[in-house]
């Protein structure tokens, strides 16, 4: 019941403000009317993109190690354990950690730092789901590859990865959907900006922080925008969830 009422409010209140200017305008200040949050949508997409760029290759390489190269080793079981622990890691701590490691070193809040904090949150999901997907590739298919004269590396690249790809992508999409709405880590890393992104080394706007900021403001206009931004965010997450279902659907 509460879930439905939230959804209902979201659609009614958020939908009321839905228009193209939301996507093209900058957030309004104080008593200004109108405005949008194009910069926050862009910022969210850029940071999620950066996070994917970092976490997907590292996650898949780690998964190859876990699933194929050395599944029984001490390093593998330690990695698996850490990844499992990290999936339940409070996201705000990822923000604090990246604040110390990146923001202080760079001397500024930035999209890079925001992307890295999201990457930290994505990585365990990507590793664990990709490992699972690769383990699902039947032994007999790997034997077939070796029997054709593949080296182990060729077997992994030409058979294991392509066969496990739908499962791997499902994991990636779920990880993206999970971090797209994160606000806590971005507070410490990307902060916010009222302007369009012009460098990934500067503070960057995001939908989640915009919602957080605007929803507590005493202005009707900003509160309406917060609702609209929530709806857009939910739709973005929904799209990634649907993509993960579509990609992961078994093919015949």
């Amino acid at each position, binding site marked *: 019941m509460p879930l439905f009422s939230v959804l209902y409010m979201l659609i009614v209140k958020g939908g009321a403000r839905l228009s193209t200017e939301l996507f093209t305008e900058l957030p309004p200040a104080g008593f200004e009317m109108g405005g949008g949050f194009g910069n926050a949508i862009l910022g969210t997409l850029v940071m999620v993109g950066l996070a994917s760029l970092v976490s997907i290759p590292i996650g898949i390489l780690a998964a190859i190690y876990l699933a194929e190269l050395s599944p029984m080793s001490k390093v593998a079981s330690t990695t698996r354990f850490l990844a499992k622990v990290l999936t339940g890691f409070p996201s705000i701590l990822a923000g604090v950690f990246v604040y110390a490691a990146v923001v202080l070193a760079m001397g500024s809040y930035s999209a890079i730092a925001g992307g890295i904090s999201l990457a930290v949150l994505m990585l365990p999901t990507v590793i664990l789901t990709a490992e699972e997907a690769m383990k699902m590739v*039947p032994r*007999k*298919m790997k*034997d*077939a*590859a*070796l*029997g*054709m*004269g*593949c*080296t182990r590396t*060729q077997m992994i690249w*030409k*058979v294991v990865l*392509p*066969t496990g790809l739908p499962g791997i992508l499902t994991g990636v999409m779920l990880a993206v959907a999970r971090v797209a709405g994160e606000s806590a880590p971005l507070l410490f890393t990307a902060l916010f900006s009222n302007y369009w992104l012009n460098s990934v080394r500067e503070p960057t706007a995001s939908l989640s922080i915009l919602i957080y900021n605007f929803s507590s403001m005493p202005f009707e206009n900003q509160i309406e925008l917060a609702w609209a931004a929530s709806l857009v965010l939910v739709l973005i997450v929904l799209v990634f969830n649907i993509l993960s279902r579509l990609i992961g659907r078994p*093919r*015949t």
Partner: protein
Amino acid sequence: MAIHCVVEKIFYGSFLAVRDSNVPIQKGKITGFIGPSGCGKSTVLRSLNRMNDMINGFRLEGQVHFMGQDVYAKQVDPVIVRRFIGMVFQQPNPFSMSIYDNVAFGLRLNRYKGNLDEKVEYALRRAALWDEVKDKLKASGLSLSGGQQQRLCIARAVATEPTVLLMDEPCSALDPIATRRIEELMLELKEEYTIAMVTHNMQQATRVADITAFFAVDISKGGRTGYLVEMGETKQIFEAPQEQLTKEYIRGEFS
């Protein structure tokens, strides 16, 4: 002689799985391996192209001579051996890719420079599958029936024109009709390829094998060690076996 396999001992870890088996594989013929379960038929067959190398603890004492080389010699790359000695497995195991890509897999792996389409068609024709799949080459290999999948695996194996084909119970997962098709296919293939095949089915051995090797398990001294009892022309093995053990096994299986 295509392969001359001289097994002194094969170990899995400390377990002696096979001993004293001298198994020559003649060129252009089908050699069938028969014998009770656990007597090492698969072990010996897979030793021929070093498919057992991946198993932890596997160790072979002896030689496998192929094209003037011991395939177990230090300087020999097992991957190259497998490109000359292809393998068809008990369970049909096409890759989860299109029929075309399955057949082209080995060609691409070997960076084949000629006309891929022609080669794929040739291999599929060779495996008696072309007419059934020529209109759906883009369909997944996994969408075929079991018998078709196994013929696809044969097409995949012959596409790169290996010298020898190893088949480990290639029909045991198939129904009688699909089995017959594979058997006919093997008889056609032996004109170009040397084939070594494991089978549990005595009738199948008499139908397709030119030469039959009978293995048994030695359980004296507390072990379970397989060894070659007798090998010869299939007719001779089934009608006039030299060894008492062979005689009993064949009588047991046929009655």
